[in-house]
């Protein structure tokens, strides 16, 4: 098994006719993902390397039985595209686009929630289940099938750690980039739940970074609900303190949002936190091999 994407995934890509959309959509197809369709309003009837293009996601669902949508459209049009996907009948929407206004995402988040559609991202690298399917921009060659689930706020850091695991001879059940935006469709806890329930996943690596309190919340959840070992990495110990504007952010989260605070919150719940991506991968491998 694996989570979110697998051999059952039938992918429809919004933005497949664009430069980045076609580059990565076709890469996903070459990896083995079933690329059912592309969507670009006004270009219905065309094709990209033989993949049919439709005017709407709903048509792609009806005609090609698509069940997973990937959003690759420019930021200012992305929230409406995600909304369209939510209403189209797919069960999963993976939004790669970066730079979407946060208030748009706030409204879109609740739409997805109410519709019972799983939303990953935005501003994320997507989801890879090695050997089965890749939806997004994760370079699949750095990941082998295996027992380690990875959930991360950062794209490039995820590749870094996955690569270290591969070099150590370990692989992954799934790699999930949840995105680092203030509002994302799925947070650490949503993905930890899926990995906890996935029989193939034996250990979870969680990659966080400064800002917000998702890591602190995840620490509480891990202590209460997760039986599998979790190893974490947090980026941003030497990040410059941002310009402090008001204090309301710290009040609601009850945390300063610093890397140190996150590390301490995780360690207090028994989660080992690596000092570098390399050390994190080493701890994961050691823990897995007991």
């Amino acid at each position: 098994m694996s989570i979110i994407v697998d051999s059952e995934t039938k992918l429809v890509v919004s933005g497949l006719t664009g430069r980045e959309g076609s580059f990565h959509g076709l890469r996903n197809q070459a990896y083995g993902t079933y690329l059912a369709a592309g969507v670009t309003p006004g270009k219905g009837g065309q094709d990209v390397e033989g993949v049919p293009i439709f005017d709407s996601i709903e048509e792609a669902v009806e005609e090609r039985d698509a069940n997973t949508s990937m959003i690759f459209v420019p930021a200012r049009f992305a929230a409406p595209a995600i909304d369209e996907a939510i209403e189209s009948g797919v069960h999963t929407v993976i939004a790669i686009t970066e730079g979407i206004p946060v208030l748009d995402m706030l409204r879109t988040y609740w739409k997805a929630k109410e519709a019972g559609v799983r939303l990953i991202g935005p501003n994320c690298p997507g989801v890879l289940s090695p050997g089965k399917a890749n939806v997004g921009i994760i370079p699949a060659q750095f990941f082998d099938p295996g027992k380690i689930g990875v959930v991360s706020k950062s794209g490039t850091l995820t590749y870094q750690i996955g690569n270290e695991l591969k070099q150590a001879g370990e692989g992954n059940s799934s790699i999930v980039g949840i995105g680092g935006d203030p509002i994302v469709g799925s947070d650490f806890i949503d993905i930890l739940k899926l990995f906890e329930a996935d029989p193939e996943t034996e250990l979870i690596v969680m990659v966080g970074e400064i800002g917000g309190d998702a890591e602190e919340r995840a620490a509480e959840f891990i202590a209460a609900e997760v039986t599998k070992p979790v190893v974490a990495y947090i980026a941003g110990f030497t990040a410059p303190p941002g310009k402090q504007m008001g204090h309301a952010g710290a009040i609601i989260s009850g945390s300063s949002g610093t890397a140190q605070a996150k590390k301490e919150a995780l360690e207090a719940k028994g989660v080992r936190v690596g000092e570098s991506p390399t050390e994190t991968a080493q701890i994961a491998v050691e823990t897995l091999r007991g």
Partner: protein
Amino acid sequence: MDLLEYQGKQLFAKHGIAVPSGEVASTVEEALAAAERIGYPCAIKAQVLIGGRGKAGGIKIAQDAAQAREHADAILGMDIFGPRGEGPFRVDQVWIEGGSDIAAEYYASVILDRGEKKLLAMVSAKGGMDIEAVAEEDPAALVREHIDPTRPFTAAEARPIVDAAGLDEDVREQAAEVLARLAEVASEEDASLIEVNPLIVTADRDVVALDAKVTIDGNALFRHQELAEIADTADDPQEAMAKEKGLTYVKLDGDVGILANGAGLCMSTLDVVAQAGGRPANFLDAGGGSKAEAIVDALTVITSDEKVTAILFNIFGGITRCDEIAKGIVEASSQLDLKVPLVVRLDGTNSEEGLAILGEADLPNLQQEKTMLDAARRVVELASQPNPRAEL
């Protein structure tokens, strides 16, 4: 993007929230002329993007022209440090506004609650002081209520929050109206943080926003032309140059120039360089899908900082293609006459093509490393050698 106090107040005024009238000034003469028009007493307030201005001496009351001149002269050009030592923030502008007779000081804010995925309204009767301390010592005094982000928030819905906070009864209706308008600013202007401390009650029982801390979502500037025109105060020459070129750059005070792709990897690179004993000179995220020109721009910005004695490129390609990065490095080397060593670590999408391009170019001051840790160690070693630029 953070707004200065007066920019925030202008935004409040646009949405019908009462603010003291005032003028902005960047010279002592302008400040004095503004004070004469406004009348005395008036407040002269440093316009900087940091809290704790009052304690730092950045806010003064002038009773007459002589005091207005004295205070404006003292405040303009002063360096203000934040409560946690942030800064210095140089004062380039002051805001002069009429003095207010303060009968009570409250606190009001509307912010994005990332955890709950909603807006959060907060009100307290204990304004005018450190609200974090209030939240800690007397949590019940800070009333919090989430707002449904999918529809407008009305004064009638704001009223129970104001009641629970125990504001003076005669001004609750006004305060509820202010809170509803703050929520309107959040949703119509794409503000992710709006904080008013203090929200005052005047001697005439009017509710007025005496301060304004507003953060606008940078991703939404495309639909707010007026806000987009407000240049964020990037005083530092490298930061100004980076902004012009559309790069995410933060200047630090070390000597190791850093370029990475993705904020997470870039932060991690700073951490690893620091662990290797080095001091990063900057944070520069070349972003997703960087093209060759962006790399030329990035190297231009990094090398314009004269403290930089070695540069680390840490690239792990996803959407970024390593061959584009390599082309950019080669292009930059021919255009920029780089005098400092470059340590390059390329991995990920099209890394083989990228490495081939670098191999072919055979640049004399470029070294490749396979791992992030080795690259960090190497660049720290190179940075600590005598500065090649200093010898010239």
